[in-house]
């Protein structure tokens, strides 16, 4: 009984880590599907979200400060994302590998700026008291299972964001444009879709979601200048496993990576888990090189 509860606790941890990965990777995957570029400064959007949460909470203290911090972080990161897209990524998008390097440069500058502004040690965001509870199941097959409110809150935010983006992509005109550009950019542009604007909007939407993830990271630990770096490499792996710009694929891939990490850490320490995760990804792409969800298209070169 105790063992099954422990295992289930680990699964729950995996799912909550996965929901962080999905928030971090969503923007990467959507812009990658549209423009075939990866923004290496995406991790710094998480960092920015964390610092914005810290600043918001010092202005708006009290139990509901965190709910104010979420939209602030979203807007701040989305704005920075829009500037980044306009100033750097759009200019280089014909050369995806160079975009990778240029955005890495941006990430170094942002990290150093954070270090100069807030110090290298990082700042602590104190989670509001209403998040400091833990539900413990006492009966039923899962008795002994602890469910911390913070982790449940992460799940809730991730579910709301995923739902909102699914609605946006599938039910609105903008979503229609996004899907059209995703499938065939020249034809969509010929039909009058402003592909340039779609790129910009989707990119800043993605960085905004990363900003939300940053607020959540701030609840889990201190916000440091390099906080984004520790989540960004798994997020890249999610993009690789997820397939091109697919919402469902990204979600499934996040779950796979989150659960794999959480379950493997029962047996080995964190660093070995990282190596095994990489091995797992390399083995996985032997079978499904195009990711979990394959978008069928006639294009030879994706």
């Amino acid at each position, binding site marked *: 009984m105790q063992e099954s509860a422990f295992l289930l606790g680990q699964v729950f941890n995996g799912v909550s880590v996965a929901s962080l990965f999905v928030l971090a990777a969503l923007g990467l995957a959507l812009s*990658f599907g549209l423009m*075939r*570029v*990866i923004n290496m400064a995406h991790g710094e959007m998480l960092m920015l979200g964390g610092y914005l949460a810290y600043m918001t909470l010092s202005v708006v203290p009290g139990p509901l400060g965190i709910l104010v911090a979420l939209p602030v972080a979203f807007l701040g990161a989305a704005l920075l994302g829009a500037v980044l897209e306009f100033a*750097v990524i759009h*200019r*280089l998008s014909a*050369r*995806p*590998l*160079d*975009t*990778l*390097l*240029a955005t*890495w*440069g*941006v*990430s*170094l*500058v942002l*990290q*150093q700026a954070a*270090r*100069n502004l807030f110090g290298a040690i990082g700042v602590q965001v104190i989670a509001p008291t209403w998040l400091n509870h833990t539900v413990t199941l006492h009966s039923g097959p899962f008795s002994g299972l602890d469910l911390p409110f913070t982790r449940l809150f992460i799940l809730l935010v991730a579910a709301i964001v995923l739902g909102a983006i699914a609605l946006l992509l599938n039910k609105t005109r903008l979503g229609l444009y996004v899907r059209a550009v995703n499938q065939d950019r020249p034809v969509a542009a010929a039909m009058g879709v402003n592909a340039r604007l779609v790129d910009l909007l989707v990119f800043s939407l993605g960085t905004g979601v990363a900003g939300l993830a940053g607020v959540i990271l701030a609840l889990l630990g201190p916000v440091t200048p390099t906080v984004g*770096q520790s989540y960004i*490499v798994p997020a*890249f*792996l999610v*993009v*690789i496993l997820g397939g091109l710009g697919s919402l469902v694929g990204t979600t499934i891939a996040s779950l796979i990576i989150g659960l794999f990490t959480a379950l493997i850490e029962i047996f080995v*320490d*964190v*660093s*070995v888990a*990282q*190596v095994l*995760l*990489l091995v797992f*990804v*390399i083995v996985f*792409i*032997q079978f499904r*090189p195009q990711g979990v969800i394959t978008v069928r298209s006639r294009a*030879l*070169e994706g």
Partner: protein
Amino acid sequence: MKLSAKHYVGAAVLLFGAFAPLIINPYELSLLGRFLALSILAMGIMLIWGEGGILSLGQGVFFGLGGYALALHLKLEGLDIANGDMPDFMTWSGVSALPYFWYPFANPWFSLACVVLIPGAVAAAFSWLVFRRRIGGVYFALITQALALAFSTLLISQQAYTGGFNGLTDYSTFDGFDITSTGAAQVIYWITFAFVVAAYFTLRWLLSTRWGIMLRATRDGENRVRFLGHNPLPYKVGAFTIAGILAGIGGALFTLHAGVVSPALVGVVPSIEMVVWVALGGRNVLWGAIAGTLLVNFAKDQISSALPSLWLYGLGALFIFAVSFLPAGIAGLFKPGSPEERVYRRILNRRKLETAE
């Protein structure tokens, strides 16, 4: 063959390189030696990235494999391992017996062979596994970055076997020869210089062969290469393996110069820094890779000791600047017909006009 200005400049650089130990002071020589060791790795990046179109953000892994393969031996040098002697850090970490994989490294020749074989084998296996499923471009770059992260975290966490965060340091002899004296530093410099020259001319020759043409063809149109009936896999895996071996040799030579190999030299950030050396110097020109490595590293040495935070801003700006405005690097300025060369020539001409007036 008619000798041009290019040949005279080349000969002058070679002469300076060969006689540098007699010209510059020991501190500068040690820096130059280290950076030349790094430039061997940079030529490998030029091969895969400039000529093969493969961006690797994990060359630090192969650099580290080469460096550690040699350092493992250097740590065992002078120890009586048959009687249970162990490197100092193992004793501190409370390891009871030398780990089995350390034993063969007691033999210097085994260790030297591993400097080449381990990075080569890992690079070949890794790139074959990824490229055979036709995964390339951005995906490959991201996977190599994950590789660099996994490798450096593993090195740090396995403190008792790898020396952890501090790495392997504090060695004095190789096969009985003292490697810390000034004379030894000169010999190590000459060995490094010989490797740089050898790598330069070997790669130059390799890129002029049919194999080099096929590699460039794969870069420019992998599917066209397939339609013409060729398999691009051997060219890509071959180039990546050669780059891995060059990185390993560079890592071993760097370890000799610096007297240390540590995870700080092999992780995600140093690996991507290696790419910017080549981006700045010129990804399609071999001497550009060497020049970029020397330039960025000497600049880093000057700036980062005085103003560390300025260095990181500068490095970030360098990344953005080099790829946005100088895609062919500094070497592109001298390449006839390149867009950079036209800008360069316009500036030169303007200066001429000003002086004429």
